[in-house]
């Protein structure tokens, strides 16, 4: 049974009541039992029991899970379907390795800062100019590739290692993350702006790497650990004067704060240092709400209707839902509207949008409709992957809303 032995009791605790059906978007939108949490759990159990040899269809069932985590909060028995799928992915990795595309993209490219930077630059330059010449190729598997933003230069190369303020009240270590570094560099600048406007000195280590979440999600714990160790050592050894490790990406945040503990559970000698690091991790909105924002400095001249999308890793990972909403409503003339199912996955779900584009496109379309129903001008969120997915979905539907990070919305409210 291998790694599945460790989760066998949890597999066996699913009594097939079907309560998770409502939580599972891939089931709701396909009506296929093997795309439901219950179905996936029963398949994993069949593999653990030796009744099913992992085949291609099994891999599809396991790899198409969004890992949104909604099933875990819905199960009356406390069965965490997402964790069982993670175990199954680890099991598959150990049995068969990882499929070539996922391997080259998620594991090798993301794990290496050089390759990643080069990839983004190539795409942003040559790639886009080629794409623009091909009619009808605006969307690749539901992903809005023509409008996919790429930073001209990585954010980390645009800024100094330390950004000082006149009367520093706090010292903040900024974990930028791949997306803000290479794609949405403007959002990274927004984070710095809001922090400095609130008397925070910002420390931005140049040698930071991918948090390891993509590798972890595909069962490659070895690469994930290498990156995790580098991240922990960088922030704790070289930049120990940073009071917190702040990230503006909910997915990175959830990985840094929670999954690192799981990843190093088998290394008791290193674990205390991991714990020390995890306790320092804070997401942007959490931090701003905690230190308090001076509302009188926020300006906004025209009325703005805003809605908020909870990224999976924000609502179920970091369990932070109030803070971003409070921050948005502090901005003058903002009319806040809650959308239906604000806390449900937008369909991005890492590489799912590329691998299982049919179902993820349906999920995004539903989300886009929910956004439209609020009549909002602007959608705020806390995860760069969600931002890109949502904006792509909105553009595809011919809607007008703009998607921004909470940090962008706030940064706009400060006078330069």
């Amino acid at each position: 049974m291998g790694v599945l032995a460790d989760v066998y009791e949890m597999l066996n605790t699913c009594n097939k009541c079907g309560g998770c059906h409502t939580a599972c978007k891939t089931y709701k939108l396909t009506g296929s039992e093997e795309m439901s949490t219950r179905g996936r759990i029963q398949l994993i159990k069949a593999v653990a029991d030796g009744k099913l040899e992992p085949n291609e269809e099994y891999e599809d069932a396991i790899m198409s899970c969004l890992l949104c985590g909604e099933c875990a909060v819905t199960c009356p028995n406390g069965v965490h379907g997402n964790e069982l799928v993670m175990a199954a992915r680890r099991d598959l990795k150990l049995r068969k390795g990882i499929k070539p595309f996922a391997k080259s993209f998620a594991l090798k490219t993301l794990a290496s800062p050089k390759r990643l930077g080069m990839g983004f630059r190539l795409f942003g330059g040559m790639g886009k100019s080629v794409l623009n010449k091909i009619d009808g190729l605006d969307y690749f598997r539901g992903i809005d590739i023509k409008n996919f933003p790429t930073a001209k230069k990585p954010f980390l190369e645009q800024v100094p290692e330390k950004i000082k303020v006149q009367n520093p009240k706090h010292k903040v270590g900024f974990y930028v993350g791949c997306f803000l570094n290479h794609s949405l560099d403007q959002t990274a600048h927004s984070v710095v702006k809001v922090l400095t406007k609130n008397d925070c000195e910002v420390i931005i280590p140049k040698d930071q790497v991918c948090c390891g979440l993509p590798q972890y999600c595909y069962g490659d714990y070895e690469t994930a650990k290498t990156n995790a160790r580098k991240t922990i050592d960088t922030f704790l050894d070289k930049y120990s004067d940073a009071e917190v490790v702040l990230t503006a990406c909910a997915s990175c945040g959830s990985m840094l704060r929670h999954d690192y503990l799981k990843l190093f559970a088998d290394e008791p000698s290193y674990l205390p240092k991991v714990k020390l690091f995890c306790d320092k991790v804070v997401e942007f909105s959490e931090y701003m709400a905690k230190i308090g924002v001076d509302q009188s400095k926020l300006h906004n001249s025209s009325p703005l209707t805003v809605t908020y999308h909870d990224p999976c890793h924000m609502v179920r990972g970091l369990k932070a839902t109030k803070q971003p909403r409070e921050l948005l409503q502090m901005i003058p003339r903002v009319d806040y509207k809650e959308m239906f199912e604000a806390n449900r996955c937008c369909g991005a779900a890492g590489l799912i949008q590329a691998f299982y584009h049919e179902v993820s496109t349906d999920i995004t379309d539903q989300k886009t409709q929910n956004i439209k129903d609020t009549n909002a001008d602007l959608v705020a969120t806390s995860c760069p992957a969600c931002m890109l997915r949502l904006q792509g979905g909105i553009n595809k539907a011919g809607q007008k809303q703009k998607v921004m990070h909470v940090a962008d919305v706030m940064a706009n409210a400060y006078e330069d």
Partner: protein
Amino acid sequence: MLSQAVVKRLKEIVGEKNVVTDKVGLLTYGYDGTLLSGEALGVVSPTTTEQVVEIVKLMNEQDIKLVPRGAGTNESGGTIPSEKSVVISFTKMTKIHEIDTENFVAVVEPGVINFDLQVELAKKNFYFPPDPSSFKASTIGGNLGECSGGPKCFKYGVTRDYMLGLEVVLPNGKVIQTGGRNFQSEPGYDLTRIIVGSEGILGLVTKVFVRILPIPRAKKTMLALYDKVEDASQTVADIVAAGIIPTTLELMDNLLINTTEDFTHAGLPRDAGAVLIIEVDGYPEDMDGQVKTIGEIASKIAKEFKVAQTAVEVDQIWTSRRSAFGSVARVRPSYGVNDITVPRSNFPKAIGGVLKVAKDFGVTIGVVAHAGDGNLHPLILFDQRNKEETETVHAAEQALCMMALDLEGTISGEHGIGLVKKKYLDKEFTPAAMEAFRKIKRSFDPSNRFNPGKIIDL
């Protein structure tokens, strides 16, 4: 295995994506909410009545049986594939054709999830009263196949009472419509009521005319707490004897209070022997009087009686109640659920009977009940991997059924007979009545093609 030719024909009928024949797919359509499982030759998911007709004709030609299935949450094995069968899954027939608030009718496809219908109805200030605990997952087709109940059925009745008409594909491939949007029953036999609760052995329902009601203007939710489950059952009998009909009268014992509390943190007292959840609805001006009367009756025995003050509190109470079945694996991994039902006045005796069975057989039983209807769900907790324990559980289940029959009750209130309770059916009905069942089945389905082996053997 299905032949390549049959698979090809099925794909022509419903499309490539809607036919499953691989091992992974078959495995996930082989189980339901029970401990049973089976494996079909294939799974086919039609999206129109015409496709259902074509599938039925093709299966008749090939002499292959059909097992209808909704969400597969049933508690009686009704959707477990039998030998040489194809599962016909209705989860992709999810259209709500019409919501007619003038005539209090909604027309839906069988795969519509009960909860999804409630959401659409609520936008028009209407609702569909039958709301089994599984309503967030289970389909209208499944609900009518099993004739599900739910917490509201004390006052409002079960699924049967809300079915106005059906479109049904018969085993010979012909389509009939029973009833319709008229409130008066149809002339001649009430065919709608023969199909409802027939667990898919007579016909395949492809369209449903359901009765809907305006949402009541006011409701109040109350909790009464007891030291012992027997005490709670006495309040139930007293409320019924006083001629009061609450919307719901639900009972949970100490075990269920604790397992659901682990999940919902609703604040139910973990040391209480039992809790009664009582809800009344109607006009706002009627609420206080009803609450007062019920409070007086309950307080004679209850150690505490309180009225929920906020909508959040009410939601939490209901989340607890609805997750009762799902939560018991926190104690033991397997459960056997019964849905024995007795006349209301015998409810306290039935509770006593359940406690006696638990003691006699040395098994752990959690009790949750739609107490107002006399419908009990004793959940026997065990570990299926332990063979000896499993056998004891089966014996205890039989004892529960016999106990209910002794109290002039029935072996199934709302979960259906399926495979799980088939062996007890002739204890409830005389040989002549059993033969009447068989004759009805044969007259619809002489070749025994639809859901064979469920409810009765021919």
